[in-house]
């Protein structure tokens, strides 16, 4: 009966608890009903009669030994009978995972080429396709959860015309009726087809369909790079988005873009960023971040110049002026001269900082500048991008680090300004049919733009999409379409490569491929001949085969997941969208550069500026109905399941608010109430609110959570580029006197001198790398139960210098290990189940300010583990290969182990968490689904180790280095995680763990962890007592070697 006391009475004394019922997001009730999305347990469900104890017994009843916890919400019980295949397919064996290559074209800022593990007809896991991608972001990975989203539309819907009170808004209809409705609506004329980003054959197909059917095709992405593309073109860069290669840079300056999280191509840029700062290879490019707030990207910077949002372009021009005079060259043609003083005044910073930055850039050998991002995209964004392009030209980065036109194509046809025009035409009755297929404008456009209202003036509205999101919910018809993992498709990648997507499983619901629906409309109208194929799969195959030269090449491309840039280019023109080859020409030119001088801001105005920014997990809101993303702590605030407003401690003091207090942020266009997060990494005249929350539809995890800051924005576009002006709104912030519920999963950003994270100055790291006093690997092996018979001692090295804190590893871990999400209420009670988390610590520096250090934290698999001796039933013990093992079927749930763990990495199942159908289809059959009363934690992917050992045994050999890759390691874009055998001195993990930067977290307590962290490297000096190399390496060697540090 453990845990049997009232489910709401057991919360900790943390701030998140006290006022949970007044949550700003109105989170109460979201998880009601049976479809809990893994976010609440049966026993926690609201029960009108207060019979939670009875339902608790019910939970126990369902969770007998061996009864799968997955069977709770009434899915078909597949395990009841032994059902073989009807016909055996070559290459498919029940119980064996096969890997297929495919692509997620719209997973996030960049298309995600992936390898998918498919077993018994279900896609179980994703990993990056190494041929085309360096990593797999959290958001892209969560597309897997989207595939099995219980809230997906399962059958065609028509708006319920009965008008009765209490009638459901939609009624289910057959596909025949739905397709004929689509056909009729297109036939009416004056139709518009609204999609998201479409490239490759898919883009060509949709354009062709629109042309043949006389439908206007509008492709719109809320976070498109229109300002970047037009600005670069002004600077002579040619059409298309650029590609940035940071790997060779020795000085990086970013003028605001969140390029490690949400901008352009985050995984590719993160890989390049890590390469440019690879201290083991003898280099470490200094990174300066210019912007109003330290984003995920800014937190990785060695230096932060806190310029106002929108002033980055002026700063770039001033910096360019200094570089030009230092190098004795003229400014690029058309670039206005801006003095550091006037730029500094406009940006609200010190002129000295601009001078220093300019001089650093001028003296650097291979510097590169990265342009502003969405956060600072206001009126004048195009000119700001042109200014940064001009700076890059001056720095000689064109063709070295910046490749105009070589990025992944935008795949959009409309800017925000075009959307405003569309809304106007909708209101004027000039659009009679609106088909929305892969876009959610009713949510993603500022409320003041009035898209939702304009939809009422369109005679026929049809949504083709997997979700009942805000736009679909306002449509007359909803035609559910396949998820990317169930579809054929392709996407153009950066550098001219093409990724090919194939369906990997039978559709979960009664859905259709989007393009096939369009094709059916064309066929009904007698226009089907134009496409030369009966279905889209054939059309795609024909297009690829004819381009690559035959069936064999097509099959090769399917196997590899696409065609590399060389193959694609060599196969000649006539492709879907023609050559996208990387230009490497100069960036010089004029264009709108002259306008850049007009970016000067009125610095005297005493106003509060609003920054709205996308987060790496929710992005433009598409991640909001995935509980993995909602429960993934934000990279900076570590908050979950809510929105917040970041403000400087000074402003918080003025308002008299602290973390979690509810404030009202209002502009001329609206107001939102959000809890406060006090953050030193934001300007004191700026507040920042993340985008992606505040859904009114979309599903159980999204609805009613947080607030949508788009409500505050004016529906105004940058006149130069047509892009939505996300920046430039001034707001009023006032305290409401109430507490909101802001669940922050990390207690403190200060490690209280416990040296949990180590920081090293770059000079020490590069030149004074002292050898270890103690060999960390030997030390781990000397643990008293180390087994000399075992050829393996599994260990891990985590490079804090490479880690950017993006959290890709965390999502991989959720996906691989059947980790449940606990929901907003559960998280507020500190019951999150993540086996892996990212710490964010703020280290004070001698130069002033703080340096953020991100640190993945997971079970350390200690050689002398404190959790082991306290277990009364040997449920946790040390095995001969060095793993700290948790045996679920032995565990009786005393929780002594978690109490004794110095790293807080053990998680307890307070309930049997549900995986409502079809989320249970994603469960990894190699991993036990844990039940109430069981402790769990990181296993170092022991199932992967065991599988690899069985394979190696079949071949009569030992495991090779690199043969076992943990889930977290596989998706890391910057290669920060290395797993392997510490007993093999040649293994990569041994080499890294023996390196000069290695240290053990809390090494002084002598638990001999198997995870060696490599110190973070910064261009700033940590204040005395921190990051001292000698102290860092003392560890267990000298008694009290760390004692002094701890007492400081």
């Amino acid at each position, binding site marked *: 009966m453990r845990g049997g006391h009232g489910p709401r009475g057991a919360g900790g004394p943390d701030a998140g608890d006290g006022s949970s019922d007044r949550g700003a997001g109105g989170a109460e009730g979201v998880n009601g009903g049976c479809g809990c999305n893994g976010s609440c347990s049966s026993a926690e469900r609201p029960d009108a009669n207060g019979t939670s104890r*009875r*339902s608790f*017994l*019910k939970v*126990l*009843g*369902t*969770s*007998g*030994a*061996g*009864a*799968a916890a997955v*069977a709770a919400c009434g899915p078909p019980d597949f395990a009841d*009978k*032994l*059902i*073989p*295949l*009807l*016909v*055996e397919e070559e290459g498919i*064996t*029940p*119980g*064996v995972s096969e890997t297929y290559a495919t692509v997620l074209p719209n997973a996030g800022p960049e298309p995600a080429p992936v390898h998918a593990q498919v077993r018994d007809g279900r896609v179980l896991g994703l990993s990056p396709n190494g041929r085309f991608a360096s990593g797999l972001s959290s958001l892209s990975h969560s597309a897997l959860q989207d595939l099995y989203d219980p809230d997906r539309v399962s059958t065609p819907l028509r708006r319920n015309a009965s008008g009765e009170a209490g009638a459901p808004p939609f009624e289910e209809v057959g596909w025949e009726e739905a397709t004929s409705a689509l056909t009729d609506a297109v036939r009416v004329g004056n139709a518009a087809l609204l999609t998201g980003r479409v490239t490759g054959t898919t883009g060509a197909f949709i354009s062709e369909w629109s042309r043949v059917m006389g439908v206007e095709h509008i492709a719109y992405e809320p976070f498109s790079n229109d300002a970047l593309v037009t600005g670069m073109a002004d600077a002579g860069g040619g059409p298309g988005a650029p590609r940035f290669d940071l790997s060779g840079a020795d000085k990086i300056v970013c003028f605001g873009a969140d390029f490690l999280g949400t901008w352009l191509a985050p995984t590719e840029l993160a890989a390049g960023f890590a390469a440019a700062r690879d201290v083991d290879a003898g280099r470490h490019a200094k990174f300066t971040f210019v912007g109003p707030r330290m984003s995920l990207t800014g937190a990785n910077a060695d230096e932060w110049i806190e310029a106002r949002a929108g002033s980055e372009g002026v700063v770039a021009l001033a910096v360019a002026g200094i570089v030009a005079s230092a190098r004795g060259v003229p400014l690029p043609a058309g670039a206005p001269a801006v003095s550091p003083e006037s730029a500094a005044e406009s940006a609200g910073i010190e002129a000295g900082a601009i001078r220093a930055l300019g001089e650093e850039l001028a003296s650097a050998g291979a510097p590169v500048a990265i342009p502003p991002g969405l956060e600072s995209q206001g009126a004048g964004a195009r000119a700001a991008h042109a200014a940064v392009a001009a700076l890059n030209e001056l720095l000689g980065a064109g063709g070295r680090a910046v490749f105009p036109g070589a990025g992944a194509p935008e795949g959009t046809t409309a800017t925000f300004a075009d959307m405003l025009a569309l809304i106007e035409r909708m209101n004027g009755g000039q659009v009679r049919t609106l088909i929305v297929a892969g876009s959610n404008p009713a949510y993603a456009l500022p409320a003041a733009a009035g898209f939702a209202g304009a939809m009422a003036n369109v005679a026929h509205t049809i949504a083709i999409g997997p979700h009942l999101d805000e736009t679909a919910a306002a449509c007359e018809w909803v035609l559910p379409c396949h998820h990317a993992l169930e579809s054929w498709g392709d996407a153009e990648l950066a550098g001219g490569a093409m990724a090919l997507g194939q369906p990997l499983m039978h559709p979960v619901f009664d859905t259709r491929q989007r393009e096939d629906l369009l094709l059916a409309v064309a066929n009904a109208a007698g226009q089907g001949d134009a496409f030369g194929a009966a279905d889209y799969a054939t059309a795609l195959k024909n297009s690829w085969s004819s381009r690559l030269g035959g069936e064999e090449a097509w099959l090769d491309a399917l196997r590899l997941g696409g065609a590399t840039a060389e193959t694609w280019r060599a196969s000649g023109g006539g492709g879907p969208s023609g050559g996208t080859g990387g230009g490497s020409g100069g960036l010089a030119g004029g264009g709108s550069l002259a306008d850049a001088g007009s970016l000067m801001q009125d610095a005297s105005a005493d106003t509060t500026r609003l920054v709205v920014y996308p987060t790496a997990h929710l992005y433009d809101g598409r991640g909001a109905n995935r509980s993995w993303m909602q429960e993934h702590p934000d990279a900076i605030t570590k908050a979950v399941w809510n929105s917040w407003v970041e403000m400087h401690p000074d402003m918080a003091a003025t308002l008299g608010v602290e973390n979690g207090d509810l404030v009202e942020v209002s502009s001329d266009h609206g107001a939102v109430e959000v809890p406060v997060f006090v953050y030193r990494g934001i300007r004191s005249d700026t507040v920042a609110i993340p985008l992606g929350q505040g859904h009114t539809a979309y599903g159980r995890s999204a609805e009613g959570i947080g607030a949508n800051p788009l409500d505050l924005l004016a529906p105004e576009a940058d006149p130069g580029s047509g892009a939505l002006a996300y920046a430039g709104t001034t707001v009023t912030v006032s305290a409401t006197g109430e507490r909101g519920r802001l669940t922050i999963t990390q207690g403190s950003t200060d490690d209280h001198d416990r040296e949990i994270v180590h920081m090293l100055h770059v000079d020490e790291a590069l030149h004074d790398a002292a050898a270890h006093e103690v060999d960390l690997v030997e030390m781990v092996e000397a643990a*008293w*139960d180390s*087994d000399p*018979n*075992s*050829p393996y001692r599994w260990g891990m090295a985590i490079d804090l210098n490479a880690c950017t804190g993006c959290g890709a590893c965390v999502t991989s871990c959720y996906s691989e290990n059947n980790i449940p999400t606990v929901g907003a209420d559960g998280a507020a009670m500190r019951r999150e189940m993540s086996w892996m988390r990212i710490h964010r610590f703020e280290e004070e520096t001698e130069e002033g300010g703080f340096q953020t250090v991100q640190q993945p934290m997971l079970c350390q698999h200690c050689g*002398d*583990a404190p959790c*082991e*001796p306290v277990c009364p039933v*040997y449920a946790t*013990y*040390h*095995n*001969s*290969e060095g793993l700290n*093992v948790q*045996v*679920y*079927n*032995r565990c009786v749930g005393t929780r002594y182990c978690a109490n004794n763990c110095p790293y807080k990495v053990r998680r307890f199942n307070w309930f049997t968490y549900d995986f409502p159908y079809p989320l249970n289809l994603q469960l990894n*059959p*190699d*991993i*036990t689904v844990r039940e109430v009363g069981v402790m769990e934690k990181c*296993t170092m992917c*022991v*199932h992967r180790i*065991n599988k690899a*050992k069985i394979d190696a*045994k*079949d071949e*009569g*050999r030992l495991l090779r280095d690199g043969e076992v890759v943990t889930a977290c390691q596989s998706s890391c874009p910057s290669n920060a995680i290395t797993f392997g055998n510490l007993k093999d001195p040649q293994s990569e993990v041994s080499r890294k763990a023996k390196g000069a930067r290695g240290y053990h977290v809390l090494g002084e307590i002598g638990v001999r962890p198997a995870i060696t962290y490599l110190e973070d490297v910064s261009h700033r000096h940590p204040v005395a007592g921190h990051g001292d190399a000698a102290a860092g390496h003392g560890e267990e060697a000298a008694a009290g070697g760390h004692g002094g540090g701890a007492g400081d």
Partner: protein
Amino acid sequence: MLRSSRVAVISVVAALVTAAVALHRYSTGSGDDVEVAAAALDVSSFFHAPTVAQEADDQTAEEDAGGEALSYGGVTDPDEMLPQWRAIYDHERASRGPEQPIPFNHRFHVSDLGIDCMYCHTGTERSVSGIVPSLEVCMGCHRVAGTGLPPIEELRAMDARGEVVEWEWVYKLPEFVQFSHQAHVRNLECQECHGPVEEMDRVYQWASLTMGWCLDCHRQPPSESDIATDHTLARDAPPPQPPGERQPEGFYPRGINTDYGRTRAPVDCVACHY
């Protein structure tokens, strides 16, 4: 013989497992079912049923000696039994093999026709699962063979309708056990775990599938052929220590002695439980 003493214990354990599964079935409804589940939770009642467990043992040993007339908690009609008795009844039935939708006869196919196991169960050598052949494999012969026999005609009708046979489980492991056929079929005969399938008209669960039964084999010293393929096995290591003679290391036995490299197969918990 050696096994019989253990099987009594095993039967109780297995009955518990089966009972828990049965509870799951009884409790998925609402209202009154909750009460049933609550009543059934009194697991102590299982331990007051030694006679039935003993009977189960005898029945298993005697192999297919009937048993439908046995009373369980004084009731013979399965539909009227209390859940905990019903669970034991179900387990008993299962121990002599469930009735299958098609009365497939292993004795005939293996002994009389001489078909190799892996002819039909192809793929088992590389899968965690023991592969149940697809209907297409059956029809490979039965398009021609056995025409006119009622079960074969039924099979052919299913093939014509594109249906698969939904077999009853015979061997079913709890969810917290990760078993891989791939790891076992290399060095073992199928019969070592599945029993004399070639003599079974209807396949039944021959082995107890308890952890002790698994470990009996895993704890053996490695053979020469084991050492030849598994490089984690120590060639010159002392033989494994018999259970009961192990000495705890240090003041507390924090490392469970897994006899690494000295046993034929891992006896480490995490070899199967994760």
